[in-house]
């Protein structure tokens, strides 16, 4: 029983790490098609902003809000100055955002220094059945679920969500219907930057905050987002994070943490190989195969009954 609880805890923790690392990127890359190599730097700005806010005497919650504002402001500024000119030009956006990521991380190193004071972690531990669990880790799980649900509701039930979905699929037609597509692009990019900044600030509660802070999360985020695909980014993100976290946790528990990461990467490669458009299409294909198998089995049984 203890092993099952321990595994479930580690699985939920891995899911939260994958979902929170990638939720900003899923908006910018999954929805807008911009390969945002500066995703980790938006996370770093969120963490730096939160650290500065806390040093200025703000309560921790407001310090985190400061980090989110900082990442959003820089995201909006970059969208207006650079990214706006690169929509629909995948490789240009990759090179430009890579350049931005270098400028941001090296700029932070030169202007601020190699590290800033860490944020305090106000969460303790909780004991269940003789096992101790970090409340912070459980909080991350709840936060990841809350953010995914909020994002889904935003896209599903609001005018912004409707206009964003229309703009991302048929920008010309959306424009011809009166949708302010340039504003939608800007707000969507800002939202992606804000979510990255938020994740950075939250991760900053348990990690050392330095200019290369985001580099640890960017590869994970890209793996999750590529596996998620762009057909339905929220469902894709959920499925991708759930499956990859299961693989990562299983191999980490069975072997070690390095094997867990390698297994996750190999799984991602297999999924992309089988279904380049993402995990949802793979699930669709598997469902179709299963239903085909069921109907052929039913047909064979009927034939056998008839012959008998």
């Amino acid at each position, binding site marked *: 029983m203890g092993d099952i609880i321990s595994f479930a805890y580690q699985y939920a923790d891995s899911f939260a790490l994958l979902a929170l690392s990638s939720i900003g990127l899923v908006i910018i890359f999954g929805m807008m098609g911009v390969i945002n190599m500066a995703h980790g730097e938006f996370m770093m700005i969120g963490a730096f902003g939160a650290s500065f806010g806390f040093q200025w005497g703000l309560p921790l919650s407001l310090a985190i809000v400061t980090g989110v504002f900082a990442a959003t402001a820089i995201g909006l500024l970059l969208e207006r100055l650079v990214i706006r000119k690169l929509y629909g030009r995948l490789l240009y956006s990759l090179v430009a955002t890579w350049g931005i990521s270098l400028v941001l991380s090296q700029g932070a190193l030169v202007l601020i220094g190699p590290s800033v004071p860490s944020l305090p972690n106000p969460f303790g531990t909780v004991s269940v059945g003789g096992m101790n669990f970090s409340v912070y880790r459980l909080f991350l799980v709840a936060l990841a679920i809350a953010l995914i649900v909020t994002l889904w509701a935003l896209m599903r039930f609001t005018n912004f969500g*409707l206009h964003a*979905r*229309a703009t991302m*699929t048929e920008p010309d037609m959306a*424009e*011809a*219907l009166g949708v302010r*597509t340039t504003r939608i692009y800007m707000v969507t990019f800002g939202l992606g930057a804000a979510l990255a900044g938020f994740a950075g600030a939250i991760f900053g509660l348990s990690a050392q905050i330095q200019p290369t802070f985001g580099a640890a999360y960017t590869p994970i985020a890209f793996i999750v987002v590529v596996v998620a695909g762009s057909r339905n980014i929220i469902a894709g993100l959920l499925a991708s994070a759930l499956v990859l976290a299961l693989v990562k946790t299983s191999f980490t528990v069975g072997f070690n943490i390095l094997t867990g990461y390698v297994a996750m990467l190999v799984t991602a490669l297999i999924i992309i190989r089988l279904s380049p458009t993402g995990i949802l299409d793979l699930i669709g294909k598997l469902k179709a195969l299963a239903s085909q198998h069921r109907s052929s089995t039913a047909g064979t049984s009927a034939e056998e009954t008839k012959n008998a």
Partner: protein
Amino acid sequence: MLTLTSVYAGYDSTPVLHDLTFEVRRGEIAAFIGRNGVGKTTLARTVIGLIKPTQGSILFADEDVTGQPARSRARKGVGYVPQGRGIFGDLTVEDNLKLGRTIGPLAPRPLEYAYDMFPILGERRSQIAGTMSGGQQQQLAIARALIGQPDLLLLDEPSDGIQPNIVEQIGELCTKLNRDEGLTICLIEQNVDLITSCAHRCLLLEKGQITQRFSPDKLQDPEVARMALAI
């Protein structure tokens, strides 16, 4: 209602419209006809603002909209139904209709307006639009443009790939909207039956210019129809 004066427009290095000049009066149904490749769709995309003219001016409701983007023209009251319908295939019928609410300066009509006009859309309001037939998608595209109460409806080949009964229905709808609500319609079309059923005037487009203006009745003459349409 709509005046184009000496408009030149096209795609990058390929000019399509040359010195295009015409006027569509308020309350008129004007059919723009011409063979394939003469610039009919370019004309529609230039009027809505998806193609920027290199020269000339476009006036809509006495306002110069030449430099304005498509969203501004739509918000001023141009409802656009593109060739190929322009449906958002991953969204539901209802979400597609909701997207028409940004058209026009007036408060949008309730979605029931669309469902009364085309009951099939009401029955399928939760269906993903891309899974509907071509005719149903065309009905959706027209209803979506009308939700926002446009002053000008721009229809680009609405009969393209559509079964005859729906084409007939579109003709009747154009006549009704024009008669009852005074809606001005630019109908870019090659279907003789649709043109003659509702248009007040034909403008013949040849090599990116309006070369003739005549009554739709003239299309009954096979010689004129052969000259003006891709038949």
